């Protein structure tokens, strides 16, 4: 195959270039131009000197992340939480989408589909108060139930081990409606003729799900997984902060990069250190997604993100 240059390509697909131009320009201006702020991560920011006038200070801004060994713990926690949340919430969303699409009661379908979207609207602040209402030692719902059955009260807030599960359950619950819509939409765009053909061949419902539905939504599933992997170093600050609060006893199990940075810089307006934390997350995300995307490209080129 002959290689063609940009000019040739531009002439061939002129219309396509024009169609993509508005958003390319928009992103260039709105996202790329301010990106010069990345230099802050390597500067000792002073207000009087500004972003570009401040002195360079090497990797000094990154040091606080790793002081006392916290850096490794919070990086590990962030990755593990994202993996756990990815598997549970996407898994639940796929199962729900497949089931809802197969159900035949139209009203039941419509109502449940709407209802499972409701948790999305409950902000983490309010979820946080729900969690406290359930688990607090003195008046929590859980302990009321336990004592009603003659059991001994448990102090969940001093049991770090259970919190990853609590957090992941609430996360899956909150996002199930939102994520399942994507899969439902993907399922509805499957050609109905496929199912009709399968019916004629006498396939049962499980076979149809396995041989038609799943393969058809595989590109969507892989896109969603890749998108999540691309933010594997970012923690949902609101979720962790509102559920865990300032409870140091749970930090070893619940501290992620975003919460650690928030706490460290609460009384310290250090833009350099904030930028350093974000930069650290960005670089790790970048490396991970490049590797994963490359692997996907090798296996199934169409499914890669870029």
């Amino acid at each position, binding site marked *: 195959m002959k290689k063609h240059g940009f000019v040739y390509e531009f002439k061939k697909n002129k219309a*396509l270039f024009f169609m993509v131009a508005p958003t390319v320009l928009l992103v260039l201006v709105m*996202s790329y131009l301010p990106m010069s702020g990345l230099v802050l991560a390597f500067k000792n920011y002073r207000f009087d000197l500004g972003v570009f006038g401040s002195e360079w200070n090497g990797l000094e801004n990154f040091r606080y992340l790793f002081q006392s060994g916290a850096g490794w713990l919070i990086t590990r926690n962030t990755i593990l939480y994202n993996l756990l949340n990815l598997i549970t919430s996407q898994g639940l969303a796929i199962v729900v989408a497949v089931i809802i699409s197969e159900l035949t009661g139209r009203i039941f379908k419509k109502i449940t589909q709407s209802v499972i979207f409701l948790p999305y609207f409950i902000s983490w602040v309010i979820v946080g108060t729900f969690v406290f209402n359930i688990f607090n030692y003195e008046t929590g719902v859980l302990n009321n139930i336990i004592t009603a059955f003659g059991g001994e009260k448990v102090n969940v807030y001093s049991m770090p081990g259970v919190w990853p599960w609590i957090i992941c359950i609430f996360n899956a619950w909150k996002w199930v409606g939102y994520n399942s819509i994507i899969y439902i939409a993907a399922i509805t*765009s499957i050609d109905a003729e496929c199912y009709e053909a399968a019916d004629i061949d006498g396939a049962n419902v499980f076979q149809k799900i396995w041989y038609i539905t799943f393969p058809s939504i595989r590109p969507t599933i892989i896109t969603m997984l890749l998108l999540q992997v691309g933010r594997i170093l970012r923690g949902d600050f609101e979720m962790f902060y509102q559920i865990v609060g300032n409870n140091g006893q749970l930090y070893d199990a619940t501290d992620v990069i975003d919460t650690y940075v928030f706490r460290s810089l609460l009384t310290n307006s250090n833009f350099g250190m904030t930028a350093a934390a974000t930069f650290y997350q960005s670089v790790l995300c970048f490396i991970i997604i490049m590797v994963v995307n490359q692997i996907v490209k090798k296996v199934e080129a169409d499914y890669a993100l870029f």
Partner: protein
Amino acid sequence: MATATVERSNKIKLTSSRIVFNIISYVFITLLAALCVLPFVMLISGSFSSEQAIRFNGYSILPQEFTTEAYGVIFKSPEKVLRAYGVTIFITAVGTILGLFLLTMTAYVISRQDFKYRNKISFFFYFTTLFNGGMISTYIFYIQYLHLKDNFLALILPGIMNVFYLLIMRSFVNTVPTALIESAKIDGAGEFRIFVQIVLPLLKSGLATIGLFMALGYWNDWYNAMLYMNTETKFPLQYMLYNMLQKQQALAAIASQVGIKVENLPSNSLKLAMAVVATGPIILFYPFVQKYFVKGITIGSVKG
């Protein structure tokens, strides 16, 4: 097209596997739905409960010591709330329509197999989810060079190119058979016309999904308003409510340090009432979007 699904469901015979599937499915979905609806019911009844009752007894299914006090606080000046609703609806409508169009068009271009730069452009967009300039330089740039202070564009533009939605949309566009586009090209249709007349109609469920997400994004955004909007009459609803709540919390936190007196607002029930006020309309809007999710698509009919 609408009849396709209905016909299909009528044809299904109740085989034993169907019965097993249905039992498991109905039980599972009903339980899940209950878990989702219950907290929301508690949220609504909490918003009608007295502050004292919530603080002492927590939430419940039915309102405790029924009162509309929290709503009274929010609607103390109803014209403000209405105007904020107006701003939010305006931002949401303009942003979603404009954004959905531009985003889908972009998704279409980067899904075209014969477009050489599709991966490079995808990466160009994706890169912005990995790296960003951070709050200060973005703020300074928007304010000083783009002059977006107090400008509605500051609320609309950042939401238009959500790269996650773009790539999800691309996965939907990918399901449109290449043969359709090829044959249209042979018929002499221009790229833009192919996109508008052939591709868009096949993307209804995708458009509904991403449109809903974009609308929710605009509807719930208070952060950009916080940074860029100065005039109270230009505040969207979520920011106005967020403001109300923060005032209460911030004052309580610093009151003792500066020695000022804080009036006691019903902050717990207020929080819940705000959630109801802010999400109500968009929940009502949801069923209209939903109808695009239940239709089965029959590509054959388009082909013919």
